[in-house]
C-alpha cells in the first residue's frame, strides 16, 4: 500500500510518515506544490494525504491533477482550514474525506483504513484480532465464534481500537471518534468509561480475555500482551 503525504510542515510530515510506516504502509512525501506535482506525474499511489495550504500553490488545484493522473487513488484532505466552504469544495472536487488540524494520529489511521476499504483496495472487510472477527460490511462481531451483540457505540469503539491495536489510544481521540464534533462540549469522559466497561464485559464473558488495558491518565491500549 503506497501513500503520498503532501504537507509543508516538515515536523508534521515526519511524524505522519513514521506513524504510517509503523502501520506497514509505504510512504512518500512532498513538502511543496511543485514536489507534489513531480511525484504525482511520475508515480501511482493508493492513497494521497493532501494539505490544502502549500507553498507554491493552492492544494485545491492539486485535486484536479490527482484525479487526472491517479484516478483510483483515495484522497484525504488535511488542513488547518476548517472552514465549511473548503471542506465542501474539496469533497465536491473528488476528495474522499477531510480531516482538520490538529488531529489524532489514531483518527488519521482509522480514516485511512476505512477510506482504503471503501475504495476496494486489497483491504479485507474483515478485521481480525486473535479470536475477534469483525465483518465491517455487515457490522457483525464474532468473538470466539460467537456472535456478540454490541451497541452502536461499543462497536465503533471496538473497531477503532482494533484498527489502532497495540497502540496507546487517548481518551480524547476515542471520544472524538465516537462522539464527533460534539466532543468539544464535553468536559468529562465518564460516558466513555461506561461504554468501555460494558465492551470489556461482553468480550470477557465469551473468551475470558481482557484486551482493553488502561493507560494511566491517558486512555487505553488494545493488546493481548
Amino acid at each position: 500500500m503506497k501513500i503520498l503525504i503532501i504537507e509543508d510542515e516538515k515536523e508534521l510530515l515526519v511524524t505522519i510518515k513514521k506513524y504510517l510506516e509503523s502501520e506497514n504502509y509505504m510512504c512518500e512525501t512532498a513538502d511543496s506544490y511543485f514536489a507534489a506535482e513531480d511525484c504525482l506525474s511520475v508515480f501511482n499511489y493508493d492513497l494521497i494525504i493532501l494539505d490544502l495550504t502549500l507553498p507554491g500553490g493552492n492544494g485545491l488545484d492539486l485535486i484536479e491533477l490527482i484525479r487526472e493522473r491517479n484516478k483510483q487513488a483515495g484522497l484525504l484532505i488535511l488542513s488547518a482550514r476548517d472552514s465549511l466552504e473548503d471542506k465542501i469544495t474539496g469533497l465536491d472536487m473528488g476528495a474522499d474525506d477531510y480531516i482538520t488540524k490538529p488531529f489524532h494520529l489514531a483518527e488519521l489511521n482509522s480514516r485511512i483504513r476505512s477510506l482504503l476499504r471503501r475504495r476496494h483496495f486489497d483491504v479485507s472487510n474483515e478485521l481480525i484480532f486473535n479470536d475477534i472477527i469483525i465483518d465491517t460490511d455487515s457490522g457483525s462481531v464474532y468473538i470466539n465464534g460467537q456472535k456478540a451483540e454490541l451497541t452502536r457505540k461499543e462497536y465503533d469503539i471496538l473497531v477503532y481500537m482494533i484498527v489502532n491495536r497495540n497502540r496507546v489510544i487517548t481518551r480524547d481521540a476515542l471520544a472524538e471518534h465516537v462522539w464527533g464534533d460534539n466532543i468539544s462540549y464535553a468536559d468529562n469522559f465518564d460516558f466513555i468509561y461506561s461504554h468501555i466497561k460494558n465492551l470489556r464485559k461482553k468480550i470477557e464473558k465469551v473468551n475470558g480475555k481482557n484486551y482493553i488495558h488502561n493507560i494511566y491518565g491517558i486512555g487505553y491500549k488494545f493488546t493481548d500482551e
Partner: protein
Amino acid sequence: MKLIEKTGRTYFRISLLALIISGAIVYFALSYIFRRALNENLLSDIDAVSRTITEKNILPSYFPYIEVKETTGRTNAEDRISDTLIFDRDEQESIPFRQIRRVISANGKTYLITARDTLPENSDLAITIAFVTGVVLILLLLSLYLANRKLSLRIWRPFYRILADLKRFSYNDPGFTFSPAGNLEEFIELKSDLEILTGKIISDYRMLKRFTGDASHELQTPLAIIQSKLETLMQLNDLKSEHYELISSAYTQTIRVSRLAQTLLLLTKISNDQFPDRQIVNISVITEEKIIILSESYSEKQFTIEEDIKPGVNIETNTFLFESLIMNLLTNAFRHSASHATIEIILDENEMIISNSGPAPAFDTEKIFDRFFKGDKSSSTHGLGLSIVKEICSVNNWEVRYIYENGRNNFIVSF
C-alpha cells in the same frame, strides 16, 4: 432639553426683558411728553384768561379748569406749577389735576389765575402700555417660534439626519454612509469628522477580528505538531506511570489550547457572517438529539430532564450555528448544575428556554455573555460558550437574556 426649546426659552427671556425695559421707557417718555403738552396748554389758557381780564375786564370762571381770584400777592412772581387732587362730586372720588398759578395785575387790581386740567391716571397709562407690550411680546414670540421651527426644520435637518445615521451605526455594517450634510460649513465639518471616526472604528474592529482569526488559525499547525509528537511519544515502550502522567498533562493542555483557538476562530467567523448558508431547520429535532447526546455524557449526575418541546418547529437559520447555540446553552446548564438538579427545556416557535435549578449566581450576571467571563474563576472552561450564544443570536437577530427566577437559572432565546 431640545435645541428648539432651549433657543425658544432664551429668546423668550431676552424679549421679555427688552420689552419690560422698553415699556418703562415708553411709560416715562409718554408721561413726560404728556405733561409738557399739558403745561403748554395750561400756559396758553392762562395767557388767554389774562388777556380776557386785561382787555375786557371780565373774570372768567370755569371750575375746576379756570379759576380767578383777587389777591394781594406780588405780581412779578414766577408761575407755580403743581399737582393737586380735587374731589369730584359726580364720581365720588378725588381726581388728579395739574394746575398752573399766575398772579397778574390788571385794571389796578391783582388777580390769581389758576388753570387746571386732569392728569391721566398713572395706572391707566401703565396698564395700557403693559397691554400693548404684552401683545407685542406675544406677536414677537409667535413669529420667533415660527421662524425657529422653520429654521430647525430646514437648517438643522442635515444635523438630525446625521444624528439618526450615527444611531444606526454598526461596526459590522460594510455599507454604512452618512446622509448629505447640506451646504453649512459646520455640518460639513461634523460629517467629515464623523466619517473619519467611524472609518477608524470599522477598520480597528476589522483588524481586531482578522488578528483573532489569523492568530487562532496560525496556532493550529504548531498545535497539530505538538499533539502528534505527544501521541508518538506515548507509544514508546518502557514508559513508566510518571512518564504517562507528564505526557497526559501536556496532552490535555494541548487539546485545551487547541479547543480555545478553534472557539475563537468560530467566534470570529460568526461575527464575520461566514455562515451565510441558511435554510429551514427543524430545530425541535436538533434540540432533542443534542439533549440525548449530552444527557449521556452527564449521566452520572442523575439530572431530571424535563422537556416541553413543541414538535416540528421550523426556523430559517444556519444548521451548524443552531447546533452550536443549543450545545453551548445545554452544556452550560449541565455543567453548572449539581447532581440531581432539574434541567428544563422549553421550545416553541417564539422562544426557547433552557433552565436549571440551583442557587443564584454569586457574580455580576450582566457580564455573563462577555468573552472569557467565568463565574467560577477556577473552572477549566474557557468562558467563551455564552459569547458564542450571544454572537449567534445577534447574527440571527434573536434576543438572548438571562434571568434568575424561583430558584432557577433561565436562558431565554427569543426568535
